[in-house]
């Protein structure tokens, strides 16, 4: 399920198998991309595979999702995205017309993001061995700013910002499968975040601790990664988290928590608490950050946990999900 993926189960799989075998200092932080030196430059490299179903959904398709996702992973590392590769795994019989649409969207998305797709690969597998079309993208970006960004960089007193209403992509996808008798006026939030990130870094270059795009597992999962890696508490105000009414309504019916729903064009940023107004102003001045909001603070205690202050003044633990969310209440 969309909101279940990316939880603790995935994380332990990654740690048990990939990290064990590939272990090296660049991989170890398990950030969205790796940052390394090449000559006098610092580069960032990232890769991601896209298996979304359905391939076409309100607000986008697997093609622009694949471009934006990799652009975003580079951007949140503090890199200026430059070049992308694109790999396709196609199921025998996949309509050529659909492939054209996917690829055309990729070209537009690359153009919008200011990157070039410079290499690629295509494989065709037997009917039934794949679900129409899978796309992999990898990307290289140039890091032009000094300083390191990373999930381990949050400190008590910092502010937690999201760049806009959350959960739109994940809910759109669930509804786009057409299995549920639910109507909602929603489109995916897929978008390239490099412009927005640049605006934020220009406004307060020294004050940004870390940024992530809240994809699989949603904002809750990202915040848990930050809390654990930084050894801090993340305290979120429930009422401050921007959620569109259509998303809230659909989530209520679906019985899921928007905090765990994937976004594809929303930034979670931790910034020095002293410059939060500057940061918010910079984000809000950008078309993709109009709905930016301060949603919480970094605290000292309890380290490693994300807490949600609810409307009634309660404090709920927002934990990393182990798998799909099974009810704990009885």
């Amino acid at each position, binding site marked *: 399920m969309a909101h279940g993926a990316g939880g603790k189960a995935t994380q332990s799989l990654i740690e048990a198998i990939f990290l064990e075998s590939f272990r090296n200092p660049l991989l170890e932080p398990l950030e969205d991309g790796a940052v390394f030196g090449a000559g006098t430059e610092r580069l960032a490299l990232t890769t991601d595979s896209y298996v979304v179903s359905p391939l076409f959904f309100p607000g986008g398709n697997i093609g622009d999702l694949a471009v934006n996702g990799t652009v975003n992973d580079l951007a949140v590392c503090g890199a200026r995205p430059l070049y992308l590769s694109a790999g396709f795994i196609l199921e025998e019989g996949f309509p050529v017309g659909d492939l054209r649409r996917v690829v055309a969207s990729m070209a537009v998305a690359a153009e919008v993001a200011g990157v070039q797709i410079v290499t690629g690969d295509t494989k065709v597998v037997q009917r039934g061995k794949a679900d129409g079309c899978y796309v992999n993208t990898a990307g290289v970006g140039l890091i032009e700013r000094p300083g390191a960004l990373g999930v381990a960089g949050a400190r008590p007193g910092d502010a937690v910002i999201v760049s806009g209403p959350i959960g739109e992509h994940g809910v759109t996808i669930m509804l786009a499968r057409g299995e549920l008798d639910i109507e909602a006026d929603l489109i995916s939030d897929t978008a390239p975040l490099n412009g927005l990130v640049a605006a934020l870094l220009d406004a307060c270059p020294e004050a940004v601790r870390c940024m992530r795009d809240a994809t699989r597992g949603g904002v809750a999962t990202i915040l848990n990664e930050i809390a654990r890696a930084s050894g801090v508490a993340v305290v979120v105000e429930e009422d401050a988290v921007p959620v569109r009414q259509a998303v809230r309504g659909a989530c209520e019916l679906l*019985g899921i928590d928007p905090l765990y729903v994937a976004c594809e064009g929303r930034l979670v940023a931790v910034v020095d608490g002293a410059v939060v107004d500057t940061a918010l102003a910079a984000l809000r001045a950008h078309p993709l950050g109009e709905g930016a909001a301060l949603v919480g603070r970094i605290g000292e205690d309890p380290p490693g946990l994300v807490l949600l202050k609810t409307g009634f003044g309660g404090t709920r*633990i927002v934990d990393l999900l182990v798998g799909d969310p099974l009810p704990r209440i009885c």
Partner: protein
Amino acid sequence: MSTRVRSVIRVEGVVQGVGFRPFVYGLAVRLGLGGLVGNDERGVFIEVEGAPALVAEFTAALRTSPPPLATVERVSARAVPVTGETRFAIARSTEGGTRRALVSPDVATCDDCLREMDDPADRRYGYAFVNCTNCGPRFTIVRDVPYDRPNTTMAGFAMCADCAREYHDPADRRFHAQPVCCPACGPRLRLLGRDGEPLAGDPVEEAVRLLRDGGVLAVKGLGGYHLAALASRESAVAALRARKHRQEKPFAVMVADLAGARSLCEVDEVEERLLTSGARPIVLLHGREEAASRVAPSVAPAVASPASATASTASQGTASSGTSQVAASETSPLAASTGVSGETPAEASGASEGLWLGVMLPYTPLHHLLLRRLGEPVVLTSGNVSDEPIAYRDEDALTRLRGVADAFLVHDRPIHTRTDDSVLRVLRGRELPLRRSRGYAPRPLPLALGLPRPVLACGAELKHTFCVARGTHAFVSHHIGDLENYETFRSFTEGVEHFLRLFDVVPEVVAHDLHPEYMSTKYALALEGADLVGVQHHHAHIASCLADNGVTGPVIGVAFDGLGYGPDATLWGGEFLVADLVSFERAGHLATVPMPGGAAAVRQPWRMAAACLDVAYGGAVPDDLDVVRRNAESWDGVLALGRRGVNAPLTSSAGRLFDAVASVAGVRDVIGYEGQAAIEWEQLADPVEKGHYGHRLTGSSPFVVHGADLVAAIAEDVRAGTETGTVSARFHTTVARIVAEGCARVRETSGLSTVALSGGVFQNALLLVRAAALLEEDGFHVLTHGQVPPNDGGISLGQAAVAAARDNHR
């Protein structure tokens, strides 16, 4: 001179802080024996010397006539050479070694202390902290062992000369009573205003005035803060509800004495014994008709009628319905559900079981002072807002209850461990704990099988308790609460540390639930250096019932509850098991149905109604059913979730079946607190109705009970216009018959004829009584709970029992 003998005697159990040494001293002096008595970390040690017959009499009396608060678990004696000692002395406490002494639960103020409090000539006249060796705070003020004043929250109060004299006099009732104090040296009351500012005047007098004026008073009690309001004043109780954000869950009431309890409720002998016991729990009692005029409607809002279920759905999400509130203020719910006035279906049938009211008697001197001066019952509810844990630190209480309380009646004796009031009800002439906490924790429960290695059992998630066990003792914690709340989770982790220290346990085995998302499971998995034992939720329920009854099985276990993680990754909850403490087999269960929306289907019973009806009617639910009409807007969407399996985990839960039928019958579509639909459904049942529905069990090993059929049968009955009370009674009888038939099937294959009934659904009086009666008629021996709750509060004991049994099997 006749022969003399000398004995070294060791007494173990709850023998410290309960007047055991003065008792031993008095006994020895009376018999003219020499020797000494002292406390150490294991309990009480005695050396006694004199004529053989007298020494024998002395030793026997240790077992047969200990002080009221003591629990003597073991007396061991061995002969040593005589020394010629003729005087008897009390030795100083020693330190070091293992800490095996047991901390006593808190005890309600004794009659001797009350007499002093009422005696104008006594130096403790009117003193709100009077206590002695036989009563007063214990567990809630203990910071460490051995149980000595410096290790309690009384450490900061230096005894005055008078108190010190009593404390050191073996003949005095206060000999070594650690919390001993008086107005000259002990804690003091203060009354603070809304914002924590000190208020002038006598604190109790002013607090009483405030309550009489209809105010909400925060009162610092033994284990935390309460919120109080005049029980008879609707505006005060309604204000309390609104400020606490607690819409519908009934409030408990404190009455001055037994007569006060009787003026509101029926009280039988067992209930009387519980109400007046040193533990002073909240006892759920049947409300009397007269209570309607003495208790405001908002104390226990009315059981919803089908009409108000409609109303509450119209404003879905808000748990309470405007309609039922309005109706409630016109006619008291007590009257309503006991059939006095004539508007709801319950009244129309005129034969409801009646409303249950939680009642308790004063258990601290302060409660006595307040209740006497007030002269009428007060609502006394936990000092918190919504689902937060009860406040117990002064600063925290002042912050969190700001805007809720109009004044704070506080004192300067700190509470070390947050401890909620215990709740019991009496069924089949026996107490059934619903929440085991103040007055009971941390009294150890004996385990039939000794533990090879010390165990920490981490419990479940809601109504959480944990359990620390070693030797033959299981120390089940006080009620912790819902672990998703961070404050509560911290009470859990800090509570574990506290218990391990108090009972000198280094766990080598850690038991936990199988649910991967329980906070307690995650806590257990993160611990290092101990062997982990995963215990299936319903196996733990049955094991807790076995441990509760001091047996080891095998038995037929019927575990009916809300939800528990099954080994097949579905959510179980309507289970017939063949189980002993080591292992279990699933012999039968309710058919699985989807829970559309997961946890949302728990909060909105109508979703379970939709899922069950969809199964029963093969996808063609008649759309003229009221439940369909009331939820028309989201009905198809919810059905789709279930059919497509989108966030719709499968469950065999009996609790969800109760929810489904309560919704179909129009009782409640959306709940405001856990178990609300089932509780109201039970209360509506017509006790005169003897009918039942058909039921279907198919297959074997495991057999399957088709619960959805029952939902459809009820839908048809409701459609035919049958009274809600009749439908409820028929449903309860049917479930009891299912339990009995399921057990009969399991007996055929297993040869077992003892049945253990556990799980939260067996808090339901009607079901428990009817199922047990059918089983006994059929020759079964029936085990039910008496010491720990059948709900998830008992899970930790079950986990510990299973872990111990498996450890014995290694």
